[in-house]
């Protein structure tokens, strides 16, 4: 079972050595040193034997990561040390990047070991519910890439509520009722547009106005087979009803929307000028910009509707865990300034705490205006697929 360590540890030590020159210079900027850290209660035991790497170790090194302000929020330094074993179910998607952070935590705390098992978020949610019902829960924590599988576990009462102090730094929209789960990284729906062709004022404030916008005729792209797009349509259906949603899909097609295989391709073609605009998750444009900083692409967000949906990856304590305290401490580490900076600069995710800026000059999460829907209901995909099929989109 030593698979988690060994190789990983050596690599990390090497990274530390290579980064030490920068690390020393960055010491003064270590998060927490200049910010209020009254949350976290006991103030942690900063004088413990744990060595917290400098901020640069948590920060991506690409163009988008440079020149960022020091993140505000609670530093790992001010959190209690982690020690003991934790069983973690980790969902797919960006799970690999999240797991990279878990490896960093294990480097920081030699007494702390995570045994993980990753699979699809929805499968794991089902497994957790089955296990809890039989009184044989295996995992202490579930870290899922989408709110709907967290909602599934919560709705089946297979969770352990988390203490307020562990989750209160996250806006309530991105927390489950009864502190069942808390978001740790977000993905926003967005409208990538080509800045040579359009300006921000050309992008309507409502998704409903897109089919009638002349600038988009035969020049906009989407990837309807993509999971995030289906969530977007589900959000629209929840907010506006099935008929209006189907009508919207049909009129977008009449307006000549171009179909692509995935949203990364949509975003690239917007940057190339092949398309003037598109529908995509926000981080695809960031990935394009990180590779081509001069690319003429920017993001717009609609307001109060599905076009500004924010879905989150989040964590949940599994009912029956005997390590509720360790889970709460672990979750606080995921919400620390360093962790949020890591998710923001490595996977270009939306930070969940207001003190950390998203990359690329995007609005912060509290400046977005997502639709008022229960994220857990995004799990109900079936009616969405049916109406997409009826509209001839799938």
């Amino acid at each position, binding site marked *: *079972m030593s698979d988690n360590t060994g190789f*990983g540890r050596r690599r990390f030590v090497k990274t530390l050595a290579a980064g030490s020159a920068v690390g020393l210079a960055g010491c003064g900027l270590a998060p927490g040193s200049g910010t209020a850290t009254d949350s976290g209660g006991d103030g942690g035991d900063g004088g413990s034997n744990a060595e917290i790497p400098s901020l640069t170790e948590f920060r991506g*090194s690409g163009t988008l990561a440079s020149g960022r302000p020091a993140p505000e929020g609670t530093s790992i330094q001010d959190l209690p040390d982690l020690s003991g074993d934790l069983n973690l179910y980790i969902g797919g998607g960006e*799970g*690999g990047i999240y797991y990279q952070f878990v490896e960093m935590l294990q480097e920081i705390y030699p007494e702390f070991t995570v045994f993980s*098992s990753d699979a699809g978020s929805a499968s794991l949610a089902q497994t957790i519910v089955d296990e809890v019902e039989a*009184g044989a829960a295996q995992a202490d924590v579930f870290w899922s890439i989408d709110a709907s599988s967290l909602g599934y576990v919560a709705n089946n009462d297979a969770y352990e509520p988390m203490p307020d102090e562990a989750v209160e730094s996250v806006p309530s929209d991105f927390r489950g009722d009864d502190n069942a789960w808390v978001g740790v990284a977000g993905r926003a729906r967005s409208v990538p547009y080509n800045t040579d062709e359009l300006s921000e004022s050309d992008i309507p404030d409502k998704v409903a106005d897109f089919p009638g916008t002349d600038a988009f005729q035969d020049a906009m792209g989407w990837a309807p087979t993509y999971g995030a797009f289906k969530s977007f349509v589900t959000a629209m259906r929840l907010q506006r009803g099935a008929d209006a949603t189907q009508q919207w899909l049909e009129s977008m097609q009449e307006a000549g929307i171009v179909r692509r295989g995935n949203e990364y391709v949509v975003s690239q073609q917007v940057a190339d000028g092949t398309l003037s605009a598109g529908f995509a998750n926000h981080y695809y444009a960031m990935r394009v910009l*990180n590779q081509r900083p001069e690319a003429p692409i920017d993001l717009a967000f609609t307001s109060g509707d599905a076009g500004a949906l924010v879905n989150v990856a989040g964590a949940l304590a599994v009912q029956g865990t005997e390590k509720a305290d360790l889970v709460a401490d672990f979750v606080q580490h995921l919400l620390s300034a360093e962790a949020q900076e890591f998710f923001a600069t*490595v996977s270009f995710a939306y930070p969940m705490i207001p003190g950390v800026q998203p990359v690329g000059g995007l609005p912060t999460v509290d400046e977005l205006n997502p639709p008022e829907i229960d994220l857990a209901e995004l799990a109900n995909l079936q009616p969405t697929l049916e109406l997409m099929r009826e509209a001839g989109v799938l």
Partner: protein
Amino acid sequence: MSVRERVGPASDFLPEDGVDAAYAALATLLALVLVAPLAWLLVDAAGLGGEALDFLVASETLAVLVRSVALVAVVTVGGVAIGVPLAVLTVQASIPFRRFWTVLIALPLAVPSYLGAFAAISAFGPSGPLSEALGVPLPALEGFVGAAVVLTLYTYPYIFLTTRASLLSLDASLVEAARTLNCGRLAAFRRVTLPQILPGIAAGALLVALYTLADFGTPNFMNLEVYTQFIYSRHRAGMGGYAALLSLQLLAVTGVILAAESAIGADDSGAYASRGNRGAAELDLGAWRYPAMALPALVAAAALALPIGIFGFWLLRGGPGYELAQLTFSWSYGWNSVKVSLLAAVASILVALPIALRSATADSKLSSVTARIPYVGYATPGIVLAIALIAFTLEAAPPLYELGRDTVALVVFAYVVRFMPQAIGSIRTSTMQVDDRLVEAARTLGRSRFGAFRAVTFPLILPGIVTGAALVFLTSMKELPATLLLRPFGFDTLVTFIWRAEETGLYGQAAIPAFVLVVVSGLSMAVLLTQEDN
């Protein structure tokens, strides 16, 4: 002619009558234990009550039925169209570098089809790397056509291998007799060779059809809604009963496929006692033998060069992922893969042996049903099986589940349920080819029944056992969904690491484990092919 008539009445390596009954019971019991976890499907589907019928005849359900069956048909026909000519070419025709081509043509079996699908979907398309390299915009390869092409490319080796085995043990004197009786070369093939190798083709086609029906990754990447997708999305949507009902419907389709195969193989016309008559009639291609190499070369290029090229390209260029992220690969993942696959291979042989021996030698309905029941496991999608196993063990005995999750026991059990039928098939075929007079001779010379089995039958069926073990090992190495859901915490294998890399978008980092996977599986393929020479 029945097996008994053919093999003779003295199926002598079997124990005495009383033991015989117990032995039959054991084989039946083993077969039933393997499919028991699927019992939850019946319970879940029963919960639907009267709605069940409405669901079954809903237009959506019917569309999936038609689509899935069509895919199975196209892939199976495609597999026969590629596998049989290649087998004839490498066994009967003298194309140059025969050995090399044989290994190369069999190798796609070592590549998980979802990796092939992933490579194909990434390589094609108007802005894909292939279009860029060639300077011509290529259409995207997806949907039904994409799934059919990819599945055909990665499953035809089943038909190639089984057809090849039949051709190698073909009684050449029969073909020569036909030729002397003025049959043309083609007519001799059609009238003599084909009927003899048909059960071999059917056995391979059965594996291809069931693989296609159960595959999850390929239709998923190709965005084609077949049973596996449909069941999974219903399951996700909390419609467990509907998902179970669909699984039952899928198993019914499996039943139809098994019956069709049974109709072709039922008279066991491929099962004759081997007289060691090798060296099947040579097919002289003359000058055509050089152009004929284009066929294996083309197939190998499509099935092997494309994924290797794409993964290599990403390894060098980093792939379209997050270049800042880094997954830590450990060689222990390779060892873990080998370990669980070896355990599965050994366990599969232990389970398959009694079932296969029983069905090859006994001539009862029960024994033939017993031999076919396990195919249900092979046709069950890994994801359905994993979910069923979790639900079943948790309902029946939570401590058993916990024990199974703490160790690799559940993973290995799932592999055995899914892949053991491949071992039954090859052991059964080799058992039917044992010349019973040898066993009789051993008995006459004073050996006990078990003694005769040990001294005569066992050495003769050993190649079948090794082939079966190699097939189970190979397919276990590739299995993804059951591995993901049933392995212990902290236990990663090559495919779980590949999965993580792909899900994260770090495609380049999947290259090394994918390559290791193909090399290790390729080695077991070598074992498989050397068995033919014994």
